[in-house]
C-alpha cells in the first residue's frame, strides 16, 4: 500500500470512527427518553420569572426603555440566551472527566488507540443533537407564541450567518473551557468547588442573568475582555442587531481566538495530566 492510499484511507477510517461514536452515543442518549422530555420542558420555567421581574422593573422605573432595551426586547433577549445556553452549556462534562480520572476509567484512553478529547467532543455533539431533535418542538412553539416580543422581526441574512457562527463557536468554546476545568482533576482529584465557581462566574459574566450592556461602562469593558460573554450574551446580541456590522466580525474573530486558546490549553493539560497520572497514579 502506498503512503497516499494509506493516508487517505486513514482519513476516511477516522471519519468512520467518528461517525460510529456519534451514532452509538445517539443511541445511548435515546435510552433516557423520559429524562430528556422533562429536562427540556423545565428549561422554560425560569424565563417566566424573568418576564414578571422585568415587568416590575419597567413599571417602577417609569421609562419604556433601559439602555436601549424595551420591555419586549428584554424578553426577546432572555429567550435568545436560552438558545445560546442550549449550545454552550455542558452538563456533566467537567464532573464526568473528574470521575473518570478518579475511578481509573481514564486508562481506557491510554490503552486503546483513541483520543480522549476527540471522543468526548463527538459524544457531546451527539448529546446536543439528541437534545435539539426533541427540544425543537417546544422551542418552536414558545418562540411562535412569543413572536410579538421580537419587535424587529428576522435579522438580515449576513447577521443570521454570523449568529450561526457565534452559536457554533459558543458550543465549542463551552466544551473546551469545561474540558480544561475537568482535566484539572489530574492535579486535584476533587473539582466540584471549581465547577461551582465557574458556574457562578458564568451566570453573571456570560449575560445569562442580565444583558451585559446594562452594566456600567467600566464593568462592561472588563467583562468584554473575558471569554464568558460568548457563551450567552454575544449570540443573543448578534441576533437582536445590537452589535454593529464591523464590530460583529471583530467579535467573532476574538471568539475564535479564545476558542483556539482553550483548544491548546486543554490539549496541553491532557498531555501533562496523562504524564503525571502515569508517573504517580495508575
Amino acid at each position: 500500500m502506498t503512503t497516499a492510499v494509506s493516508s487517505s484511507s486513514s482519513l476516511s477510517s477516522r471519519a468512520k470512527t467518528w461517525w460510529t461514536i456519534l451514532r452509538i452515543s445517539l443511541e445511548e442518549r435515546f435510552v433516557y427518553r423520559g429524562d430528556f422530555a422533562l429536562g427540556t420542558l423545565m428549561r422554560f420555567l425560569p424565563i417566566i420569572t424573568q418576564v414578571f421581574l422585568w415587568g416590575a422593573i419597567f413599571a417602577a422605573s417609569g421609562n419604556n426603555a433601559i439602555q436601549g432595551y424595551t420591555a419586549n426586547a428584554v424578553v426577546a433577549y432572555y429567550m435568545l440566551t436560552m438558545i445560546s445556553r442550549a449550545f454552550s452549556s455542558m452538563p456533566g462534562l467537567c464532573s464526568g472527566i473528574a470521575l473518570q480520572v478518579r475511578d481509573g476509567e481514564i486508562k481506557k484512553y491510554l490503552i486503546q488507540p483513541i483520543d480522549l478529547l476527540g471522543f468526548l467532543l463527538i459524544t457531546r455533539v451527539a448529546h446536543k443533537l439528541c437534545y435539539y431533535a426533541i427540544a425543537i418542538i417546544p422551542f418552536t412553539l414558545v418562540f411562535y407564541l412569543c413572536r410579538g416580543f421580537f419587535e424587529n422581526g428576522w435579522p438580515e441574512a449576513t447577521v443570521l450567518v454570523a449568529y450561526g457562527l457565534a452559536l457554533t463557536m459558543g458550543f465549542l468554546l463551552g466544551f473546551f473551557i469545561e474540558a480544561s476545568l475537568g482535566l484539572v482533576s489530574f492535579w486535584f482529584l476533587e473539582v466540584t468547588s471549581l465547577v461551582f465557581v465557574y458556574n457562578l462566574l458564568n451566570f453573571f459574566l456570560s449575560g445569562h442573568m442580565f444583558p451585559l450592556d446594562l452594566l456600567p461602562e467600566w464593568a462592561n469593558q472588563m467583562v468584554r475582555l473575558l471569554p464568558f460573554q460568548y457563551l450567552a450574551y454575544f449570540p443573543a446580541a448578534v441576533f437582536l442587531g445590537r452589535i454593529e456590522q464591523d464590530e460583529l466580525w471583530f467579535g467573532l474573530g476574538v471568539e475564535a481566538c479564545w476558542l483556539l486558546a482553550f483548544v491548546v490549553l486543554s490539549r496541553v493539560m491532557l498531555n501533562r495530566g496523562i504524564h503525571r497520572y502515569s508517573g504517580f497514579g495508575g
Partner: protein
Amino acid sequence: MPMALIELNNLQKTYRVYQKKEGLRASIKGLFKRKYKEVQAVRGIDLQVEQGEFVAFLGPNGAGKTTTLKLLSGVIHPTAGSATVMGHIPWRRENDYRRRFALVMGQKNQLWWDLPAQESFRLHQQIYGIEPDTFQHTLDELSDLLGLRELLSQPVRELSLGERMKMELTAALLHSPEVLFLDEPTIGLDVVAQHNIQQFLKYYQEKRKITILLTSHYMKDVAALCKRVVIIADGQIQYDGSLSGIIDETTNRKLVTLQFADPIDKRLLGSLKRFGHIVHHEAPRVKLGVTRDDVPAMLTAILDAYDIDDLIVEEPPLEEVIADVFARVSETSATQSELGLSRSNDTQVGEAE
C-alpha cells in the same frame, strides 16, 4: 541472542502515597504540609517471555502484579529500568503498539453500560480499524466459543457478571491482539463461569499461539492454563518456573495419610510423632507431614509395627506451598527492615508542601 517478545530489565516503580494521620487536626495540618510515603510497588523485575507462552503471575495482594501489567500496557511509566513488548516501549503509547495488545481487568468495565455489547464491539471495530469481513468472522467465532450469540443485542447492564466478563474478553480480542494481559479475569465468578472462561482461554491461546500474561488468585486458573508460573511477592520475583517445580523447589515435605485397622489411642499418636508432625487425625485416619527423604524409612517402620488398611503419600496442596512462600518473603523483609539491612532506603518519609 534474539530478543524475547516481552523483556523486562530491572523494572521498578515507586508510588508516592499521602500519609494522613487520624483526626480533624491532622486533616487541617494536611492542608499545609503533607507527608508522603514512598511505596516501592515493583522493586526490580527481570523477566523474559517468549512468543506463545502463557505465563501466570501469582502473589498476594499488593505484591506488584497489577503494577507490572500496568507498566507493560503503558498506563504508567516506571521509576527505573526498562521494558519492551514486541519491540515497543509500552509507556510511549504508540498507536502501532496499542493495536497489537489488549488488557482486560476483571474489575473494570470497558463496554457501554446502557447499550448492547454489539454496539461497543462496532466501536472497537472502528477504533482498531478492523476490516468488516474480519470483524464479522472474529465476532462470530468468539461469540460461538463463549456462547454469547443470543446476548449480543441485550443491554450490558442486564447481563450477569460472568456474561459481562465474556463480553469484555470478546471486546479485547476483536482486534486479534498478539499479546494479552489479563488481570484477575475470573474474579467474583461462580465455578461454572470460571471454568468456561478457563476453557476458552486455553483453546484460544493454543489455536492462535498468542502470548498471555495472567494474574489470578485462583490456583485453578493457573493450574488449568499456565505451564510457567512467576511468583511475585514484595515487588520482586521469588520463583519463575513450572507449576510442579514450585513444590520441588520450595518444600521438602510430603503428606502421608495412614488408615489404621486398630483403634487409634494416645500412645499410638505419641509414637507417630517421631516420624513427623501430625497435620490432622480423625479415626481411623492420621495425616502426617514428613520430610521427603525420610518417607521410605518411615513407611517401612510403620508397616512393620502396625496393621495398616490404607496408605496415601502425596504432595502438599499448592495453595499451602505458595502461602508458605509468601509468608517466608514477608517475614524476611520484616526482619531485614528491623535490622536495618540492605533495603533501608525502601520507605522514605519525605515532606512536601
